């Protein structure tokens, strides 16, 4: 037998016919009771897409209200609920679930495993996360807020004390925020425990840590971060419940408690949380850019080291969200240093992606278009982050629309673009069908225009003195025209997303068959059928390099010669 064949046997599987004949109830029951990582991955992703639409509606309501000064589209009470729910939804019920969904689907496939380490824990974690979102949104019905104007929480997604104390947050709206997130936090810890254990214990023969796809590495780092940082939020929320229900004084400033302590606890969670969100996005880029440049990732080991470094440093930068609370000059200076330090490994990653493009043969399919958008936009987002890291500059820019523009640049321009790239890249694998490339390009260009209209110009009102979380603003301060442009950009983004959803749905039913490996890629998920059978691989693969399918396709020049 030739060496090439002994390296990896391709999986030949014939798919059974689609089970359209099963009754709906049985199919629904299968989905609800599934412990298969692929189905749970899809459940997470669909759940996240539903909340993406809801969060988008909340954003649209805010932008209509802010398009002109002194508008009366919604009352201040409703507006304050909108920004609270929009932020909470997008972070906890869109970004985290969709990233967990992709991790769930592809980590086992990429490491040559049949499922996650703990399939039942996997299902439990998903349903806990889902329950958290339902609890949060039940607040619209059951929360009984202060002014009786609907009842969703209105304390902002970071729920600063003492605004959340019983004295200032009457009724139960804040409790829905607390409990919804406590429950979904349990789900997050369960999922990441699972991902970490899977990556460490379930790799196929030959796949040492140094031969794992970057996707698996980065999800491992993300999981480690979640385990350490979601718990502080859980702890702080338990403390808040003790304050609200048992008469405790953790954040009760009248009894000597400290409002700043909540800020510390929240941001010890909150800052690493955004790295939890961006690191899986980095994982997508690190898998997709090489395939569409036709070269391996530049500097694999450095990419791993940089990500681990980012993970560690991210635990030490949190008080850059608190530059204005009156810390000492030494405290402020320390956090300036740590925050700026994190830009070094982050920059290294951007340069390594640049190095991957360099000398390649770039193919501009939709996933790659979104990756290129990511690279430009993440660069800009990182630079506005450096500006905010310079504490005195943050004393002006903090809590203004400049910050809102910065973090949306990272989350929408970075994470969401990477997510769109991931959707288009892996949709053929998950559904067995190709999406429509023309519609994909329409989505990209419309969304790009809308994104830049909204979030480029959003920096300007911040520089001109417009704070965040205001339901209206004074005319004559020079903010009007920029707010109007920002609001108009929403339209393009909405249309782009609608085209995206339509593309997915239509292609699922009517798209061309994709085959195992439409992109001529190199990681293990492309060696099995599209969609993969329940058991993933007919025989567990044996690998000898980072790109097992490259070795198979290029037996005269395999990767393990060079690694």
């Amino acid at each position: 037998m030739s060496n090439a064949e002994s390296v990896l046997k391709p999986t030949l599987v014939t798919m059974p016919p689609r089970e359209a004949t099963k009754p709906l109830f049985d199919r629904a029951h299968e989905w609800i009771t599934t412990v298969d990582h692929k189905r749970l991955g899809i459940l997470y992703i669909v759940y996240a897409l539903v909340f993406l639409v809801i969060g988008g509606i909340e954003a649209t309501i805010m932008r209509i209200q802010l398009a002109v000064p002194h508008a009366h589209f919604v009352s201040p009470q409703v507006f304050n609920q909108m920004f609270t729910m929009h932020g909470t939804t997008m972070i906890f019920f869109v970004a985290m679930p969709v990233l967990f969904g992709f991790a769930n689907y592809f980590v086992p496939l990429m490491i040559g495993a049949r499922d996650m380490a703990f399939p039942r824990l996997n299902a439990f974690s998903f349903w806990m996360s889902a329950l958290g979102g339902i609890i949060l949104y039940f607040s619209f019905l059951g929360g009984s807020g202060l002014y009786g104007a609907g009842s969703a929480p209105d304390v902002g997604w970071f729920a600063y004390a003492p605004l959340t104390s019983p004295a200032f947050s009457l009724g139960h709206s804040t409790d829905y925020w607390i409990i919804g997130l406590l429950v979904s936090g349990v789900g997050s810890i369960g999922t990441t425990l699972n991902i970490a254990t899977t990556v460490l214990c379930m790799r196929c023969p030959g796949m040492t840590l140094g031969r794992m796809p970057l996707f698996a590495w980065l999800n491992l780092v993300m999981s480690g971060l979640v385990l350490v940082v979601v718990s502080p939020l859980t702890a702080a929320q338990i403390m808040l419940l003790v304050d609200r229900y048992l008469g405790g004084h953790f954040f009760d400033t009248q009894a000597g408690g400290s409002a700043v302590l909540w800020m510390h606890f929240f941001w010890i969670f909150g800052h690493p949380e955004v790295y939890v969100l961006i690191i899986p996005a980095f994982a997508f880029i690190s898998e997709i850019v090489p395939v569409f440049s036709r070269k391996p990732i530049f500097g694999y080991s450095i990419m791993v080291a940089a990500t681990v470094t980012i993970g560690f440093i991210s635990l030490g930068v949190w008080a850059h969200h608190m530059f204005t609370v009156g810390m000492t000059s030494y405290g402020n200076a320390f956090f300036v240093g740590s925050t700026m330090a994190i830009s070094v490994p982050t920059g290294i990653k951007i340069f390594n992606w640049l190095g991957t493009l360099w000398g390649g043969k770039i193919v501009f399919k939709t996933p790659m278009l979104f990756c290129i958008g990511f690279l430009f936009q993440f660069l800009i987002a990182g630079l506005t982050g450096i500006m905010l890291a310079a504490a005195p500059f943050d004393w002006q820019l903090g809590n203004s629309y400049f910050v809102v523009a910065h973090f949306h640049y990272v989350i929408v321009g970075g994470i969401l673009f990477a997510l769109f790239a991931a959707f288009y890249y892996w949709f053929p694998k998950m559904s067995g069908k190709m999406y429509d490339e023309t519609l994909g390009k329409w989505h990209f260009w419309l969304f790009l225009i809308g994104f830049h209209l909204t979030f480029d110009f959003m920096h300007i009102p911040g520089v001109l003195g417009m704070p965040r979380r205001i339901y209206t603003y004074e005319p004559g301060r020079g903010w009007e025209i920029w707010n109007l442009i920002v609001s108009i950009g929403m339209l393009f983004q909405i249309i782009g997303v609608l085209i995206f959803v339509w593309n997915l749905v239509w292609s699922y039913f009517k798209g061309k068959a994709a085959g195992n490996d439409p992109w001529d890629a190199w990681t293990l998920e492309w060696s099995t059928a599209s969609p993969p059978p329940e058991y993933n691989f007919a025989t567990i693969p044996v690998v000898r390099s980072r790109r097992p399918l490259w070795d198979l396709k290029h037996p005269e020049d395999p990767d393990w010669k060079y690694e």
Partner: protein
Amino acid sequence: MAATTLALPPAEMPLPQEYRGHVGMWCLIIAESAIFTIFVVAYLYYAGKSLSGPTPAEVLHVPWFNSVCLFASSFTIVMAERAIVQGKTRPFGIWWLLTIALGAIFILGTAREWYHLIYDDGLTISSSLFGTTFYSLVGLHASHVIIGLTGLSIIMICTALGYVKQEHAPRIEVFAMYWHFVDAIWVVVLTVVYFVAR
């Protein structure tokens, strides 16, 4: 083919699947440690800052007996693990029962201490910063002991019904890790509450 002249690199076996339980439990311990860390930080931050109410020095007495019982339960659970690894289910059951008993003594002792603090000393969760942080931190630990006792009891019932065998030893080990963690947390809480911040 030219490839036949190249020597294949070795295909090492990475960490075996049997370690799943241990790795998973370590992840849980890391997450739980982070929660406790935050409560300890809050306790230390507010030490001495209460505006009113009894002080720790006035009302806290080191719970020696309870603590010794809890630490001893770590010893008994190790003996139980050794027994089941060798397949000796009867000694395993005895050591396991002892572990439960020692843990239960700890909880009862904590309850007695709290009764005394609330009704005799007037220290409640709402009386002051000290009260809030004390009952929250010690209570969080106690709730983890209770969860551990619940798990221990379930395994005890399964043992009594004859379902626990030698091949379950790795799972017993993983559960015992949780119990050791609860003990280790008590070392920290005991030190911080009854020694450092008094």
